[in-house]
């Protein structure tokens, strides 16, 4: 968890200073998809406040958006077809587009579709990296050769 928080803090700074993509939201979405637990909501709330602060926005707006998005992912995980990770593409696209709409509405700005495309594109490598990280302690069955 500590590593994740440090990573999210680092990504928050990167997102605000260097790359104009919602990297924190991508990581939170993917984590909520992999591990639909309560802590995701705390992270969404906390980092929503932090991103709003770094971006000099109104505190709480980004948290609200993040919370809705993460809760939507949790709901999706309740559905029977959620185990198919290929459904991540339409899910992430839809969720990020909705988030971009909400951010654009709250900040009275326009949507950058190019950013949404890159965010969706980035979500797949992030999914595999996070999955590898989260499952690092999961014991896998040994491969036994049939002799």
């Amino acid at each position, binding site marked *: 968890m500590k590593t994740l928080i440090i990573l999210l803090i680092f990504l928050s*700074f*990167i997102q*605000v*200073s*260097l790359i104009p993509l919602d990297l924190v939201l991508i990581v939170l979405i993917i984590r909520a998809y992999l591990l*639909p637990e*309560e802590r995701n*909501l*705390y992270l*969404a*709330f906390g980092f*929503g*406040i932090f991103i709003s*602060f*770094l971006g000099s926005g*109104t*505190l*709480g*707006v980004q*948290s*609200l958006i993040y*919370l*809705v998005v993460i*809760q939507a992912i*949790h*709901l999706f*995980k*309740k559905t029977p077809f959620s185990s198919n990770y290929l459904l991540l593409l339409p899910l992430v696209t839809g969720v990020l587009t909705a988030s971009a709409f909400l951010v654009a509405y709250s900040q009275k700005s326009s949507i950058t579709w190019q950013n949404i495309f890159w965010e969706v594109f980035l979500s797949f490598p992030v999914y595999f990296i996070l999955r590898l990280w989260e499952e690092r302690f999961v014991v896998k069955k040994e491969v036994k050769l049939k002799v």
Partner: protein
Amino acid sequence: MIYYCVYKVIPHLQIFLILVFLSFFTILLDSFKTFGFPKIAVSYLTTPIEYGLYKSGQSIKSQFYFIFAARFAAKENKAMQEQIGSLLSENADLRRKLSESESLIEQEKTLDPKVYKFIIARPIGLDRYLKIDKGSEDGVKLNQAVVFKDNFLGKVTNVSPKTSSLILPTDPDSKLAVFSINKEGRAKGILSGRFGSEMIMDKILHEEKIFEGDLVYSEGTEGFLPRGLILGRVTEVLERETEIFKQAKIKPVFDISDLELVFVIEE
């Protein structure tokens, strides 16, 4: 009962609602500038990090930009070189056209185009004969005289549909009736080529006056050649008492290989 069902369907509903409420509460407090002081305090910590990251990003970006700029400059340089090549070629073409136009104007000043009808031709080769780019399809015929300004260049000896060859006065097979003129009088003779590089004016009577520097003109008795065209300049007079006639070495007044255009006298 309904709450229980919703609670079962929506995961972590209680926490979610609390956090949503907290978010709205934060928005409300922030809109009243309640977080002014904590924000300033935290910004002392975050601003240097943001600035450092931003500057690092700019530095990396500029490094990458340099690579792209170098590649772009290389492409641009190549394109510019091609453009320069094309412009040089165009410039050379324009210079050639200008030179041709000037030659044409000079020619019209010298030999009246109302009297002489010319075929404008371009020299395309020089060995023993001078080759021009006009042939029978353009109206060139055998034995027509070719001039430049008021200088005689040669006579058409061979005609193909597209090109023609001229025999030059320096050719050993060329023989022309000529005369030279100066203040003391005039001298007549026969001009023939020697070794393909010089001309000799022969059959000059001893009593006729000819000196170095005199210009030599055509007599025009051959039929194809107008009278008074310049053939060259006397460079040396060869005079021996034991011989009946005098001789004079004649040098062309210009180098044929420098010519851009020549004019075939059609009529």
